């Protein structure tokens, strides 16, 4: 693509009227003063509209009986580029694998959403949620119980056949 350079021509001496420019500026600011365009989102009262592909706080999907859907396959800690997932897997009497420890450090996480993409059983998700402020740093390592408690909507994965989510 050709680079287009816009050359700003300075008006020649005596061609610009300062008076007119000043009055024009004053009328412009006056118009905004009497009829301001509303752009501010008054956040705590008004909530922003999050995109369906917004990647925020994680959540763990659960079965109807309350068990986590995770099968401790180990793909998410492997794929995680920030190395923020700690997973210790176990096996029960029937030979079903389940996570003994599943921790996500939300501080290290870069919210790329690859854990969600790689998960074979659609257990771990990133969600459409961002209000995760806490009083202490230690509260930012989410354990399995905490991940299962989250109930915000999960993120829609990117669909190559519908790149704009339309």
């Amino acid at each position, binding site marked *: 693509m050709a680079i287009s350079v816009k*050359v700003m*021509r*300075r008006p*020649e*001496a*005596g*061609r*610009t*009227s*300062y*008076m*007119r420019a*000043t009055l024009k*500026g*004053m009328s*412009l*600011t*006056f118009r*905004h*003063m*009497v009829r*301001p*365009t*509303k*752009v*501010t989102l*008054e956040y705590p009262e008004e909530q922003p509209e999050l995109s369906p592909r917004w990647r925020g706080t994680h959540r763990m999907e659960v079965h109807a009986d309350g068990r986590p859907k995770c099968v401790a396959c180990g793909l998410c800690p492997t794929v995680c580029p920030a190395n923020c997932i700690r997973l210790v897997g176990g096996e029960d009497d029937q030979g079903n694998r389940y996570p003994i420890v599943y921790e996500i450090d939300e501080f290290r996480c870069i919210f790329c959403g690859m854990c969600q993409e790689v998960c074979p059983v659609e257990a771990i998700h990133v969600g459409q949620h961002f209000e995760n402020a806490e009083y202490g740093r230690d509260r930012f390592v989410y354990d399995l119980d905490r991940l299962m408690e989250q109930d915000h909507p999960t993120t829609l994965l990117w669909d190559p056949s519908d790149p704009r989510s339309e």
Partner: protein
Amino acid sequence: MGEMQELSTFWFVTFGAVKVVAVFTVVMVVVAYMTLAERRVSAFIQDRLGPNRVGPFGLLQPIADGLKNIIKEETMPGTAAKFYFVLGPALAIMPAVVTFAVIPFAAPLPTPVGTVDMIVADVPIGILYILALSSLAVYGIVLSGWASNNKYAFLGGLRASAQMISYEVALGLSVIAVLLLAGNVTLTEMVWKQQQLGLWFVFPLSLAFIFFLISALAETNRLPFDMPEAESELITGYHTEYSAMKFSMFFIAEYAHVVTASALMATLFFGGWDIPFWPGDDMFRHEGAWIRGFDESGAPIPTTPSVLITLLTLGAFSAKTGFFLLLYIWIRWTLPRFRYDQVMHLGWKVLLPAALGYIMLIAGTMLVLDQLGVTYGMLYGLVLTAVSGVTTLAFLFFVDRDRVISGAHRKRTPRAGVTRPVAGTGGRPTSS
């Protein structure tokens, strides 16, 4: 009817004290709400919301600000000159709050014990008192800038001294035109003269008003002339090192100056507390009686002060002052800051000679009118309005389009027909 009952000394002192307290309180409240209005209006201009959290529409914000400034830590730079550092804010705020004393803010108020002038102190030197005291304000700024022992504060102080002294000249000269027409320096009489003329002085002295407006902006250190503060260049200039209530005092001083300058503009050029198109509110002390004017034969027409008129005129005065307060904010958030040399150039090389010439013109016109026997009244005013209008248009024509003042890049621009900067060569003239 029209007979005047003078106040006894006791009531004079009592009402004086009440007026001092009332005016001081009102000015301080207006200053507090000016800071809020500034933030809200600037926010609206920039499509933001501004402070709207404390109270309905943020109306309690000034109280929160004041409280915060009182309980904040007062920092004291280790290398500052301590005595002058503390003296600075006090010197800055004092002239700002006392200048309002000579501005009449309403028609006289009748009371059972006599008529009370709605002015804190009707001193016979009027406007001279304001000029004298407002020029003291620069000492606070210079002193605090120097005592801070900070290069930015120092530069701010230097700029303040140069700018405020320069523009005082233009301010004083623009007021002289008003003095010529009013024939007196007391502000009460200026209001009366405007009522007699039937025209506010802004019409017969339009150019003086423009000079006064520009100089007042420079005197109060407001944009586009806020050289002493100039955030982008000097951090915040002279009050860089100040915190908490000391900083707040500079802030109050600046806004008190703005309020006084607005009230002064309303009084000198917009009839003060006069209600337009209604002679019923005209009122002046004349040979021991209240009069509304003079009839054809020159006999005084008596009038009676009334509470209703006092309230109405107070409203008129507040509306006019409020308009100028808004204008101050409006200008601040529209125009960019001048460069320092441009400020000096405008003050000394444009405003000073133009104001001097304008005084000569007004004096000459008045002399001619007096010689022709035109009485002080509507015709007198209209002739002056015509002369001033033409002069104003001529002045605006000549300062516009680089004829007198221009930006830096125009300094070396050759005249037409020699060489012209060509687009795309970075402004350099082509070699051909």
